[in-house]
């Protein structure tokens, strides 16, 4: 095991990054940024307001035309150089994100940061390979279709993967030739600035601008501005609707990723042998605790077929009890701290209503006190509820390490329960029978159905929601088109008039 020291590479204060330099907040205010590991403040961050957003939009508009005309080879080269810098600093980036968010460093080292690096490389490649099209309307007439950048886009980033979620939005937007004004989450603004300290010199001034602050003070002026051509947001339904309402005032597109209540379905034949596959499926069950459950696709509903229900669930409880809680910077730690106090309180409120509704606690169910300086941090025991899909703990995103388990009779029953939700972002299907896997995967109303795997997020696999889970598909070259306009040149090569006039 390795136990990293608390990172010391933070600045004591982070201002806004506008036009290629750090700029003090117009209102002069700063807010404290605590680590959820101990609850102690480690830096302070500029409290952005509308004038700061306007200044960032000025810088972005000043840079957008030149960036949009920069060759795709050059833009791709810059994205690859960003990836190289991140690769060279993978460990310090991982520690920074872990310290700010509370997640185990084993995850940031193995997943968050490597995925972010690959994401920049993927979109560097995708933009090089993207082509327009032409349609030969008739012998004299050709329709040319060009991809053009939107111009200046606004991006509002969540706190659960501060660097990776920023990358999911930045890489396609920058590749497509847009200038960006980005607002990090107010819970986790600092790690994106540490990332920026490594790569800021690679981008022309104004192409990337970061305005910190609270949603109501900085996010709203960005999302409601007539000067952004598009808004991208990851978060929850009410704010998603509000952003759509603002966008409707200016007739701008949005992409939204708003969460889910993902079912993870285990058919009887998973337990047909005691082998590697069964072991993998049990790990797949336990994935509800990845990132402390603070994942939009947390497999927070486990549906287990009746034939192996008792045996599989008993093994899953044991697997869950084996999750090692501890200091997030210890590489043996499997579950760290929830990202904020209010997140902790919300999870505890769901543990309460789950019990009131009659769900049975099979393990966990409480706040965890890990002792020492971690006593001030925000830790929750991995929790398994057993109950019915109508209960609120089966229907609402808790965003904590909490899974609710129920049984099903057959494929139709599994699909019915899986789809009995307002959301449709992710799902998991586990079976040794590929025909069952295919039928279930096609019938589940969710944008991503992991089949005999879970929580994999490779670039080039489209990710996005059905139903109330949002609009758009990230993580794939199709996201480029969410950051582009189509220009059609309809060209006549005939010298003859039509004859109307």
């Amino acid at each position, binding site marked *: 095991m390795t136990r990293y020291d608390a990172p010391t590479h933070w600045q004591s204060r982070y201002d806004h990054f506008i036009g290629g330099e750090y700029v003090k907040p117009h209102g002069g205010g700063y*807010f404290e940024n605590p680590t959820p590991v101990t609850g102690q403040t480690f830096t302070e961050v500029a*409290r952005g307001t509308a004038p700061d957003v306007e200044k960032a939009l000025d810088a972005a508009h000043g840079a957008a035309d030149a960036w949009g005309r920069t060759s795709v080879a050059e833009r791709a080269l810059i994205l690859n150089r960003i990836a190289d810098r991140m690769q060279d600093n993978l460990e310090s980036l991982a520690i920074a994100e872990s310290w700010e968010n509370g997640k185990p460093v084993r995850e940031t080292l193995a997943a968050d940061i490597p995925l972010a690096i690959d994401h920049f490389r993927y979109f560097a490649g995708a933009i090089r390979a993207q082509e327009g099209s032409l349609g030969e309307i008739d012998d004299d007439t050709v329709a040319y279709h060009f991809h053009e950048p939107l111009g200046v886009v606004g991006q509002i980033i*969540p*706190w*659960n993967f501060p660097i990776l979620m920023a990358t999911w939005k930045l890489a396609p937007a920058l590749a497509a030739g847009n200038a960006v004004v980005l607002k990090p*989450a*107010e*819970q986790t603004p600092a790690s994106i600035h540490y990332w920026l300290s490594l790569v800021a010199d690679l981008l022309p001034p104004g192409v990337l601008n970061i305005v910190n602050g*609270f*949603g*109501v*003070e900085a*996010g*709203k002026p960005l*999302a409601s501005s007539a000067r952004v051509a598009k808004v991208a947001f*990851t*978060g*929850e*339904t*009410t*704010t*998603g*609707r*509000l952003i759509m*309402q603002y966008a409707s005032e200016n007739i701008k597109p949005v992409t939204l990723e*708003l*969460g*889910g209540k993902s079912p993870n379905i285990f058919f009887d034949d998973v337990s047909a042998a005691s082998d590697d596959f069964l072991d993998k499926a049990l790990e797949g069950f336990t994935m509800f605790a990845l990132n402390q459950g603070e*994942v*939009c696709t947390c497999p927070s509903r486990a549906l287990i077929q009746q034939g192996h229900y008792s045996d599989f669930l008993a093994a899953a409880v044991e697997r869950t009890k084996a999750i090692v809680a501890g200091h997030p910077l210890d590489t043996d730690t499997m579950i760290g701290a929830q990202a*904020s*106090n*209010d*997140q902790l*309180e*919300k999870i505890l*409120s*769901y543990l*309460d*209503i789950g019990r*009131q*509704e009659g769900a049975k606690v099979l393990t966990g169910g409480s706040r965890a006190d890990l002792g020492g300086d971690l006593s001030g941090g925000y830790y929750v025991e991995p929790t398994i509820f057993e109950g019915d899909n*109508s209960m*609120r703990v089966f*229907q*609402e*995103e*808790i*965003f904590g390490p909490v899974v609710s388990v129920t049984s099903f009779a057959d494929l139709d029953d599994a699909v019915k329960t899986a789809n009995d939700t*307002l*959301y449709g972002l992710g799902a998991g299907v586990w079976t040794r029978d590929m025909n069952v896997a295919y039928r279930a995967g096609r019938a589940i109303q969710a944008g991503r159905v992991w089949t005999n795997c879970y929580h994999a997020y490779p670039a080039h696999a489209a990710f996005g929601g059905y139903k*109330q*889970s949002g609009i758009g598909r990230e993580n794939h070259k199709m996201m480029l088109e969410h950051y582009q306009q189509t220009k059609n040149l309809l060209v006549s090569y005939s010298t003859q008039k039509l004859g109307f006039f």
Partner: protein
Amino acid sequence: MSVVSVTPAAADLIRSLRGRHGPLMFHQSGGCCDGSAPMCYPAGEFRTGSSDVLLASLAVDGVPEPVEFWMSSAQWELWKHTRLTVDVVPGRGSGFSLEAPDGLRFLIRSRLAA
């Protein structure tokens, strides 16, 4: 028993926000990140429609007008066997909800309907 009630601490915060921002409203969020929590906006900031249900018009001492509490009707179908209490805890993030800069966060506590 009313569908939505307010703790004294939440009432204090509502009074304070009312003083600074004018009339208020709540819309209960679903989904990830800062979701599954009530969002507090200036009244009328969030446009409710046919997909929403007005759960309560909260009377808060010191606030001259009722504070409407809304939820999407699809979500209320799943919540209607419970009664809700608006509370407040120290916190940080909240979408565009008004209280976040105060270092506070509205939170829903639930109990089964009698």
